[in-house]
Structure formats: structure tokens, C-alpha cells
């Protein structure tokens, strides 16, 4: 009775043994960066590191985060790349990271890297409005430049933003307002804007998508979302709110359970290299690596050379802890 069983089990065991340690040269990356970016960055990384095979899983921030947490019992990723810092700091994810001092990480400002050396963020994105020009013209309303502008009654029923409860982007935006104006004034502004708010969408990119197809005049999403739309040819303009431009850092980290830590570390080193920086500047507005010139768009929008002057020192850790309370309060105040 046992012999047939063993005969069947042997090949299985062999397969399992082979599957255990990853084939040398294979790195599994989980990322929340946009598809377009990922293609470009990986191409560059491949050129710099030809002997490594990159297996990239790309999902939206929320989906990737959920995936990482769900796999906690048996992590499948070697590296987390370009992942919203606010979510990275969630203990369920943070605790899965291993400390690693990537080459060149010292050149980043303190607020852009972890004290415990578990993460560092060479790039980020900012909250931005996508404004649909034809629709705005139809309304005969002025171009908004700030969150405060959004209270203008001319925009009634024409503004959309993400639901902070289901989207990191939405949360980022109200966190910025609250941190910038302080709690009382911040909630007051949020409530005022709510009168013009047509919808709070489930996903973070949808407000901009709706604005670009002309469903609504103003969609609050992210700078990259806006740029994608403009590049596609949609008649929209990107506006970075002059008052509280919330921003998010996209962090990289090494997974403690990585099956191929050596090659993973080489990749992480590359993300801080000059070669990487060169590609970043094509896609990113917010690059924390020193020496990378600010993008033309930001220059045109009147942003200073050193962004840290205008970007609010977002307290990401605090954002994380107070998250539940803030969402609950938001829901009570304006939730639908």
C-alpha cells in the first residue's frame, strides 16, 4: 500500500524541492507604479542588469497592498517597488520588510527614508486636479487653482474626488488639507467643497478619468493620472492645488522572505542610480533624488526648485495611525 504512494510522492517532493529557492537570476517584484512607467523602468533596469529576469506584478495600490498582506504567511515577492508610503507603513506590511541600506540611500533627505532602513522613496506623486477645458468653457467658470477655489458655486455638481475610505488617493487629499489647515478649518473646508461634490468614487484614478471624458469638469486625482490623460490627447489641464498639494511617496523595500535577496538588492540599488533617475524625470514630477531637475510642468506651474518648500511635511506615520478615526469622521460629516 505504501509503495504506490511513495512512487507518486517522490516526483512531487522533487518538484517542491526545485521550486523552493528561486532560480538564480529571478526577481519577483510587486509594484503599484503605472503600467507605462513600469515598462520603461524595467527596460532600463534590464539594460543595466542583463542577467536578472524581472517578474513584475502590477496592480493598483490598494489591490497590491491587500495582496501583500494576504500572502503574509508565505510571501511571494522579493521586492516591493513604488508603493504608497502611507500603506507601506501599515504594520501588516512594514513588518514583512527587511532592513537594507541600498547604495546611495544616504543621499536622500531624511524624510524620504526609513530610520530602520526598511524603506526608501526616490519618487512620489502629488495630488492634482484634472480640469476638462471644453466643459469648463461650457460652464463659463474660471480655472480653479486651489482647494479653496473648489468652493466656488459655479462648480456645483461638477467636482469629483475619490472616497477616502476606499482609495489611498482620496485619503491623501483630505489628509493634506487637514494637516495644512488644522483640524477645525480643514473639516470646514472639506464640508464646503462637499456642496459642489457630485460623487466620491471608489477608485483613485476614476475622478480624472471622468474629467477627461467630459463627464465632470473637475476631477481630483494624482499628477501622473493627469499627465497620462494629457499625453493621450484629452482636452484637460493639470492643476496642482496651490494651497495644500498633498503628496505621497512611492517607497521601495526588500521583503524579509525574499527568495532571491542578492539580485533583489541589486535591483534596489539600481532604483537609486543615475540610470534610474534619468528615466524618472520623464514620468515623475516628484523625484527626491538630488540633482534631478524639476520637471517642465512644475516649472511652468510656478513651483520652486526645491519642492520640499511647498510640499507639506506629510506626517505619513501619523496619517496611518489616525486613518480610521479620520475616515470615520469624514463619513459622518459628508458621507453619502
Amino acid at each position, binding site marked *: 500500500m505504501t509503495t504506490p504512494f511513495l512512487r507518486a510522492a517522490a516526483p512531487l517532493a522533487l518538484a517542491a524541492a526545485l521550486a523552493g529557492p528561486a532560480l538564480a537570476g529571478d526577481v519577483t517584484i510587486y509594484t503599484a507604479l503605472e503600467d507605462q512607467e513600469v515598462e520603461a523602468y524595467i527596460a532600463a533596469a534590464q539594460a543595466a542588469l542583463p542577467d536578472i529576469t524581472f517578474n513584475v*506584478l502590477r496592480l493598483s495600490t490598494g489591490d497590491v497592498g491587500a495582496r501583500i498582506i*494576504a500572502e503574509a504567511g508565505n510571501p511571494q515577492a522579493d521586492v516591493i517597488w513604488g508603493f504608497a508610503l502611507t500603506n507601506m507603513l501599515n504594520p501588516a506590511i512594514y513588518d514583512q520588510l527587511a532592513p537594507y541600506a541600498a547604495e546611495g540611500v544616504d543621499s536622500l533627505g531624511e524624510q524620504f527614508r526609513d530610520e530602520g532602513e526598511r524603506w526608501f522613496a526616490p519618487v512620489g506623486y502629488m495630488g492634482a486636479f484634472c480640469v476638462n477645458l471644453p466643459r469648463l468653457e461650457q460652464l463659463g467658470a474660471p480655472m480653479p487653482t486651489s482647494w479653496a477655489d473648489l468652493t466656488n458655486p459655479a462648480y456645483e455638481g461638477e467636482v469629483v474626488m475619490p472616497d477616502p475610505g476606499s482609495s489611498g488617493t482620496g485619503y491623501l487629499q483630505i489628509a493634506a488639507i487637514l494637516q495644512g489647515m488644522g483640524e477645525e478649518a480643514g473639516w470646514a473646508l472639506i464640508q464646503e467643497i462637499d456642496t459642489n461634490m457630485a460623487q466620491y468614487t471608489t477608485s483613485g484614478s476614476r475622478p480624472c478619468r471622468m474629467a477627461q471624458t467630459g463627464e465632470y469638469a473637475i476631477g481630483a486625482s494624482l499628477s501622473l493620472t493627469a499627465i497620462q*490623460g494629457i499625453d*493621450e490627447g484629452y482636452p484637460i489641464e493639470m492643476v496642482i492645488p496651490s494651497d495644500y498639494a498633498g503628496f505621497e511617496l512611492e517607497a521601495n523595500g526588500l521583503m524579509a522572505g525574499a527568495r532571491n535577496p542578492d539580485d533583489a538588492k541589486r535591483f534596489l540599488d539600481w532604483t537609486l542610480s543615475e540610470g534610474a533617475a534619468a528615466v524618472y524625470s520623464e514620468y515623475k514630477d516628484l523625484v527626491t533624488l538630488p540633482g534631478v531637475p524639476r520637471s517642465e510642468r512644475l516649472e511652468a506651474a510656478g513651483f520652486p526648485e526645491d519642492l520640499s518648500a511647498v510640499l507639506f511635511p506629510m506626517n505619513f506615520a501619523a496619517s496611518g495611525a489616525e486613518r480610521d478615526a479620520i475616515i470615520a469622521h469624514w463619513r459622518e460629516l459628508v458621507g453619502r
Partner: protein
Amino acid sequence: MSAAVRPRLSGQARLLFWTSMLVPLAGLALFFLYPMAIVVRRSVTLGDGSLGLDNYIRILGQSHIWGVLGNSLVMSGLTTLICITLGFAIAYALQRTRMPLRWLVSLALVLPLLAPSLVQALGLIFLFGRNGLINQWTGWGIQIYGLPGLVISNTMYALPQAVMIIGAALRHSDTRQYDAARVLGASPWRRFVDITLPGARFGLLSAGFVSFTITITDFGNAAVVGGNYRVLATEIYAQVVGQMNFNMGAVIGIMLLIPTLLAVYLEKLASRREGASESAIPVQPDRAWKRDLVLGTLSQATALVVIAVVATVVFASFVRLWPYRLEMTFQNYNITQENGYKPLWTSLYASTLTAVIGTTLLFALTVAQRQLGRGMAKAVYLLAIVPVGVPGLVLGLSYVLAFNTRAIFPGMLYGTALLIALCNFYHYHSQGFLTMVTGIRTVPPALEETVTCMGGGPLRGLRDAVLPVMSPVLVTVFFFLFMRGMVTLSAVIFLISPTVSVGAVSVLRLDQAGYSTQAAAFSVCIMLVVLAALGLMRAILWLMSRRREVAAAA
């Protein structure tokens, strides 16, 4: 007087029974109960790791949850009512009238099944959105976001299945009852009320049950056209994906099971064990102009809306930039991101697996459960139809939690197309099972008994008596599982890996990235692949039946 001695079943019969009983049940246990048990466990796991009902208390304490629950119930209730009424009207029109253009209505009903539900939502927005075609042409300020859009898109989603179920029930009427009633003096209306409606009762109930559960758990439509109308499905998404709070997500997932269980209970309560009419003479369609006018208008209008929505998506796939640059182009079909069209072929492979494995297991289970005692049979029945109440998101998540382990078994399944195939099967287990069970009721016991008395074993009985009668049902279930596998999104989004992805996810990604016309193009490709695969299967079936005919004639 000694107790009656029953002859023991032959060895083969016993083996067959136990295999066909245990394998599907084992599958259900491993691929449904086990993952769900993990979800239940998570729902009662508190922040510090201890067990308790705090999560439930917290969720129920959030005042907005009651509003969300109410929204879900209202939306699903409305959709169910519409699906039953409209579904009955259309099923009746297709079977009992000679209304013109019946083929058009049948075609329209197939369309929503060919592509991810995202497509209907997109199409609705392209057509009825604030900057959609209709508003642009007419200037009416149609507001599609919110309850109206949700009800319409969910109705489009559930209607084909409702029509299928009700149609099957109508098909089993016997014309002699109508003749008898007619001669007794009953008017056409009376015949409808006294014979048709009660006869279709079981089908209506079944259709209502399925409509309710699949719409209350749907997430895709709610995310795109839901607007501010929050439902439980989006709430799960918010908890799990937005706030990384699995345990809360699990709680809401369990909460969603309650309406399902209620619906199951009601259905069992109201359905009577109706024996199959062995030689029912089917009812012939007839003409009655007033009735045909009403039903015809209703059916054609519905068909028109469905076709318009899908056609808009197809149109958009050829458009340069929707809605601002309407020049036609093939550019959108040149999709290169995320492995281009490779996920589509993976979908094809996985869906075929789903269909083959699913049909076999369901058939085995259906055949075996006939021999169970009443109590056991009821238990198996309930177990088999519970999966429909679990939202795809929750099921997919449970699979990650259950199968992503270091242990060889079942860990080696993780990240494979096989696991995706299995997840899809168990997601649609209920509908497949219901259809099979309805079908096996039409097999006359006399057929199998004849084979037995002629000396044929149970396998022969299955092959020569049951299979031929059940083959249309088997084909239906096969096609159903295949099509659902090709278009399902919410369950599998957690199961894709860097190398294994499915077509529906590609569509979602493209849409999220703002390439809505490319998303439309990819959806059209999915639809074409599904149609081609169905056409191929039908051709094979036809060839097989021709071969049999030729062999018989020879």
C-alpha cells in the same frame, strides 16, 4: 415476519456511487468550505489576534453600515423584481408566441454574457453618461450614476440567466392541461393565470434567487456607475483594499451571506417536489395580437437597449479618443502593455479547465445525490448552492489566505491557472448545480431501470440512459461555466501572478489607466474569442451527432 431483504448494490454500483459522491464533495470541502472557514475565522479575529465578535459589533455600530445594507437590499430587490417580470415576459415571448425577430432577442440576451460586466458599465456611460452620446445628441440631463445606473447594469447582467431558468420551466408544460382548461371554458387570460403561472412558479423562484444573489454581491458595476449609492460589495472593497482591513472585510462578506441563506431557505420552503411529466406534449406557440404586441414591444425594447450598450462599446473600440476625437482607427487593438493579449489565451485555457472539471464534477454530484436519503440530500443540496452568496472578492481573497502556504499541498496550486480555474468553478457552482438538478429531473426512471434489467451496470445506465437525455443540460452547463470563466473579474484579481493573468484583469487595468478605448478593444477581443470558442464547440457537437447518425444509418 422478517424485515425485507434488499439486494446489495453490485460492487461497481457502490464504487460509482461513492466516487461520484465523494470527489465533488471533497472538491467543495477543499476549495470552498476550507477557504470560507478561514474567512470566518478572520472575521472573528480581533486586532490583537484574539477571537471575538468585536468586529461585528464595531461594524454594526457604524451608523452608515445600515444605510449601506439598506441600499444593497433595495438595489437587489428592485433588480430582482425587474428580472423576474421582464425575464418572464421575454421567456414567454420566446417560447409561446410567434412574435417576429425572436432571434434578435435571443442574440441580445447572449451579449452581456460574453464580456466582463465592466463592459456594460462602460457602455452605459458611453451612451447615457453626462457626456455620453444620448446627452450630447439630445441635451436631456440624464443622470445615470447611482441607483438607476446600478439597476440597469445589474439587470443586464442578471437578465440572461433569469430568462434561461424561466425558459426551462416553461418548456416543461403539457399542452393537454391547456386543452382541458380551454374546453372547460377558460379564457386565454385565465389559462395564463391558472396554469402557466403556477407551472412556472418554481422557475420564477429560482430565477429570483439567482438574480438577487448575483446582483447583491456584484462589485464591478457598483464601482463604475454606482456614484454615491454605496452598497455592501463596495464596502468590502473599501475595507479590504482601501483600508487593508481584512478582518472587517471578512465581516461584511459574512454579512452578505445572510440574504443568500435567507433566499435559499425561502426557495426550499416554497418549492414542491414536482414529478417530471414523462411524456409531456410541449405547448405549441400561437398568435394573439394584443398579447404579442405588448410582449413583443417589451422584449424588443430590452434587446435594443442591450444591443445599443454593447454596440457603443464596439464602436468606441475603433475610436481615436472618446468622446473628443471620433475618427476611426485600429490603433486600440494594438495592445502591448502587460503582455498584450497573452492573458486572453490564459483565460481561454483556464476557462476550458473550469468547464471540463466543473461539468464533470457537477454531473457526478447530481447523479449521486439522487440516491441519498431526504435529510442527506437536502444537506448536499444546500451546500451545493451556497457558493453563489459569496462575493467574488471575498472568495478570491479566501483563496489567497488558504492556498498561499509553504506546504506542498495545497501550496503548489498558488499562482497557477488551475487555481484560477477552480476558483471560477466554485464561484459559479450554485448556478451549474441548479441547472443540472433541474435537468436530471427530466430523466425518466424507467430508462435506467430498463438498462439495469437488461444486465447493464450503473455505468452503462449512465452512458445509455442518463447521458443522452441530459446532454442538452450538460452542454448548457459547460458553455455557461466556460463563458463565466472568460469574463469573471472580482474573484481572480487576487489570484493572478506576474506570469499568469486573465483577460478580464487586462480590461480593468486598461480602463483604470485611462485607456478606455483600448479597454473597449480588449473587451471586443474577449467577446470574439468567446463567440469563436462557442462556435467551435457547437460545430464539434454537431459533427459528433452527425457521425452517430451516419453510424446508426449504416
